[in-house]
């Protein structure tokens, strides 16, 4: 297995009024291709901040953060935007779909930044919508879909440009138990069958059980590492 995420001595702090609040302290982490990692920890522990740094939507104060051997800490905004388009798929707690776009158009969004023509884009979108089981909902708008369906559209959007990593911030946090299970099944399938590297932030122990690596954060420090083989059929 090749290393896909390598983090060394990563620090991040925020200024709150006159005070500097340290959020991440000397984070060191290596993730390998094809892993499904869950980042857990109490609120304010820095797990979402770490996820944002890995996804290139926030910048660290110091340290090294390499994705596929490329250090992204020195990139400017425009360069980071291009890098994210090529390498990162996002799944958010509240789906973050464009309400005025249909499911098809939402999924098509990342492909508009590529050189693919209309026909090729349609093929890609049709494929991922089929993968998430929403072919018959392609023309529906987010308001016409359930929470679980909206999250599946978001997963299709994260997947459509075949990114290097998929980052998911509390992907089941806004869903009922049944929908959450469907979403976790889907993420697991992506990881196992398509060999997608997934980094997921979650509060939910049931969700974390689907990951093969669980890392805990407490007060900005990575504490323990839990590696486990998946328990088939336990969910």
């Amino acid at each position, binding site marked *: 297995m090749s290393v896909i995420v390598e983090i060394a001595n990563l620090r991040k702090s925020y200024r709150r009024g006159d005070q500097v609040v340290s959020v991440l302290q000397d984070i060191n982490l290596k993730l390998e291709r094809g892993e499904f990692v869950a980042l857990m920890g109490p609120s304010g522990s820095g797990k979402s*901040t770490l996820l*944002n740094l890995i*996804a290139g*939507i*926030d910048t660290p104060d110091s340290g090294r953060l390499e994705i596929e051997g490329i250090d992204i800490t020195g990139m400017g*905004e*425009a360069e980071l*935007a*291009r890098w*994210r*388009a*090529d390498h*990162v798929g*996002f799944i*958010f*707690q*509240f789906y*973050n779909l*464009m*309400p*005025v*776009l249909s499911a098809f158009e939402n999924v098509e*969004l*990342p492909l*508009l*930044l590529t050189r693919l023509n209309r026909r090729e884009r349609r093929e890609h979108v049709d494929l991922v919508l089929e993968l998430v089981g929403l072919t018959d909902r392609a023309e529906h708008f987010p308001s016409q879909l359930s929470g679980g369906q909206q999250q599946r559209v978001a997963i299709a*959007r994260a997947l459509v440009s075949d990114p290097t990593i998929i980052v998911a911030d509390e992907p089941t946090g*806004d869903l009922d138990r049944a929908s959450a299970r469907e979403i976790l099944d889907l993420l697991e399938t992506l990881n196992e069958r398509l060999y997608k590297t997934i980094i997921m932030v979650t509060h939910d122990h049931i969700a974390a059980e689907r990951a093969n690596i669980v890392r805990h954060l407490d007060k900005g420090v990575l504490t323990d590492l839990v590696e486990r083989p998946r328990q088939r059929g336990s969910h």
Partner: protein
Amino acid sequence: MWSFLLRLVLRNCLRHPLRTSLTVLGIVVAITAFGLLRTTIDAWYAGAEASSASRLVVRNKNSLTFSLPLYYRARIEQLEGVKSVSYADWFGGIYIAPKNFFPRFAVEPRSYFELYPEFVLPPEQMKAFVLDRRGAIVGRKTAEKYGFKIGDQIPIIGDIFPGNWSFVLRGIYHGADSKTDESQFFLQWDNLNETMKKLAPDHANEVGIFLIALERPEDAPLIAQRVDKLFASSRAQTLTETEKAFQLSFVAMTEAILTVIQIVSFLIIVIIMAVMANTMAMTARERRGEYATLKAIGFNDSHVVALIAGESLLISLSAGAVGIWLLYPLAEWVGHRFGSIFPIFLVAPRTPLLAAAMALLIGVVAAIAPAWRASTLKVAEGFRGIG
């Protein structure tokens, strides 16, 4: 990509139909009001705009309310470069009630209409007017407004020239072009003078102004100087100026009003600009999460700016187009309704261009602050508050 952004802009515009409709309505009203006010200013200057460069007006140097002796005409005619001379008097008066205003002048028929070829009258009507000392001629607009027909008796109550006057309508003129005033009423100066001989002999054989047709328009300053020099030691000294300067001297009396109208026309734009800027700021604030999501996916700042600017411009320009479209029938209605005050109330070609520029300015200015905020928005910050 850009076709997608345009589609997104269109759909974003329709997300809050009530908000968009009210904003569009506000801009439509502002642009139409702006256009109407500009047209009002133009209407004020219409007389000066329509005046000829080859005509001079001679009046009493002391004031327009003082007259000049009729015999000056013969002396002016002697001057080199003068083609012809006519004369006129402001008659004033009231037609039934003071609200029925239209300009009334006493003129010497032959020379006056030679001097003003823009007043087009059929020859037989002109002949009938010349032959009838109690005759009168009226412009098409005034005739239509009051339903005057040839042969009608038109009673006028005198004010400057007291008495109950009655005139027989002998002709209806129309303008040679759209800039010609079609609201005026002309009576024979001889008719007025005959009455003055009986009622106020001291004021008989006196005229309000002389009108000079020039051989060459470029001689205007020189001839004006010669006329004034000619009567410099007479009992009634003259002030000679081009017809345009003469008309502008009337406009100058109301310059303060015009300045206020100008200021108000631009204030309307500034107010709607503030309203539109507030709408766009509110819209962009609501969509922070969406802009952050687009940026996270890989869209750059220029895409987000294009979304905001596109929406702002689409609203302002489409509303501007409707406002300009409405301006024409409204200006026509105003021209018809207030024709006696504004004989020429036409939308000038530059007015819709200026209105379109104002609509563009509204769209650009309203987009600046929200576009700036959205382009500098940090992705992680944009996600806060979603949910």
